[in-house]
């Protein structure tokens, strides 16, 4: 049991912090510009594909550095020449725009890389077990993912709370007009935040691609969970996004690790069902199979009992 707990916690942290790498950008963009960017996870997918292609020629590490940069530049261009124009036509137009962008990116990815899964590999250098505990291995690559995500988290926190740019961003979340009225170039800051946010999504794709597999559906799968994260955390709340990311990461990881099934659960209550019962599928459900549904189950519960999310503020 303790080894299950240790590994499930570590894996939960890896997933949770990875989710936060996407959720933080999505949240910052939402709270500054009021845009819920449905294409955010598409930038995550682009990161993985770019890194894969770069790694074929120049190795993993070159991809790690350049793929997020390229994704960030694309993100900044999308904001500057796409979103900013659409913005004049209101929020609905913006939503439709980001929806369209998500589909476009998926099509583009299929067009250039094909519909099949890419053989994007973890780097040679990290192909060893970081440590072995109770006879179970924790791979160096997962340790590396954890280190990168923690580094990004600390960096983001420092920039937002300590630097002048961070203060301007915080101020622009509550009163963007006033920030501009004080002489700060708010449109440029919006572009930069969008660029950095999408670059972080790209970085998440680079490091997750080899583990979670690189295929055209990866944006949709992770995107829907990230969407759940920001709603559960409370739209626009960074601490909420962190809390919800870790919550979902750990919840899923524990559900997979514990792997108790309905039969065991029912046995606790002294119940048993014949295997040829028409509802057999239901009796034999186990947590591992439920794990992918858990985030959405949590979403529904949160929306029912706390519609503003865990740390969200009520709209005025």
């Amino acid at each position: 049991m303790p080894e299950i707990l240790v590994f499930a916690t570590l894996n939960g942290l890896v997933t949770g912090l990875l989710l936060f790498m996407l959720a933080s950008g999505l949240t910052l963009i939402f709270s500054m510009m009021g845009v819920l960017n449905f294409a955010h996870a598409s930038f995550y997918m682009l990161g993985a594909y770019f890194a894969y292609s770069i790694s074929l020629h120049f190795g993993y590490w070159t991809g790690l550095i350049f793929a997020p940069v390229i994704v960030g530049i694309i993100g900044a261009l999308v904001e500057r020449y796409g979103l900013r124009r659409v913005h004049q036509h209101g929020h609905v137009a913006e939503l439709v725009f980001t929806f369209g962008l998500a589909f476009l990116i998926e099509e583009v990815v299929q067009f250039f890389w094909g519909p099949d899964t890419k053989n994007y590999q973890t780097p040679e250098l990290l192909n060893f077990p970081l440590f072995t505990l109770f006879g179970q291995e924790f791979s160096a690559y997962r340790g590396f993912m954890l280190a990168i995500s923690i580094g990004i988290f600390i960096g983001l926190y420092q920039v937002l709370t300590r630097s002048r740019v961070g203060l301007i961003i915080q101020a622009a979340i509550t009163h963007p007009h006033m920030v501009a009225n004080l002489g700060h170039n708010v449109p440029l800051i919006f572009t930069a935040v969008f660029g950095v946010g999408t670059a972080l999504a790209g970085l998440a794709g680079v490091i997750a691609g080899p583990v979670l597999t690189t295929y055209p559906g990866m944006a949709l799968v992770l995107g829907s969970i990230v969407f759940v994260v920001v709603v559960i955390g409370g739209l626009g709340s960074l601490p909420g996004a962190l809390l919800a990311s870790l919550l979902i990461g750990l919840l899923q990881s524990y559900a997979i690790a514990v792997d108790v099934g309905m039969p065991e659960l029912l046995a606790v209550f002294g119940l048993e069902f014949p295997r040829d019962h028409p509802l057999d599928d239901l009796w034999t459900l186990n947590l591992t199979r439920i794990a992918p549904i858990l985030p959405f189950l949590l979403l529904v519960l949160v929306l029912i009992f706390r519609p503003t999310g865990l740390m969200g503020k009520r709209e005025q």
Partner: protein
Amino acid sequence: MLEVADLNAWYGKSHVLRGVSFAVGGGEIVSLLGRNGVGRSTTVKAIMGEVHPEGLIRFKGEQIAGRPSYEIARRGLGYVPENREIFPTLTVRQNLLLGMKSTSPSGRWSIKEVFAMFPLLADRAEVPGGALSGGEQQLLSMCRTLMGDPDMVLIDEPTEGLAPKIVEQVGDLLREIASRGVAILLVEQKLNIALRISNRLYIMGQGQVVWEGTPESLKQANEVRAEWLEV
């Protein structure tokens, strides 16, 4: 310093400013008076580019209508909005720091001086702006704009809803601003303050300037006050 001619602005389909014209000279204190909803706030917002303006807005001889807000501010036009817009999560000191357009302190005002002038802000330097009282927020909002060293400030109803003691301090600060050669366009509702500190006054009716003159002439013009100001 500032020249506005035939300024028009809309909120959706409603035509709120219908040809507003006025001017403010260098170092002058000019008040813009009028009843609720005549478009005084919209006038200053249109000048700052927060509301889309149509017409002539010339600042230091250059047309600024349609320029982005941050650029207008950088040319030396400061703005203190009616709802103060203090950044609630940032401390008093951080609010003041963001008033500066660059990291190097320069110009007529410094944080040290602001704290010397208003000990009640100095005492709360590290407190989040959202925790201040309305009066403290008003003083902070004005000082924050001054940190950018503007040559002219637009101040929208700085004394609204404040206790007499703070109103006094706001009045002192307005005089201090003027004494340093900074021009002021003061949007007001309280006639006595405007009469006491202004060089000239304008009165707005529905989306237009309907009267202009000096404090003396307004004191005499009973029928003007009755028609456009008194409720």
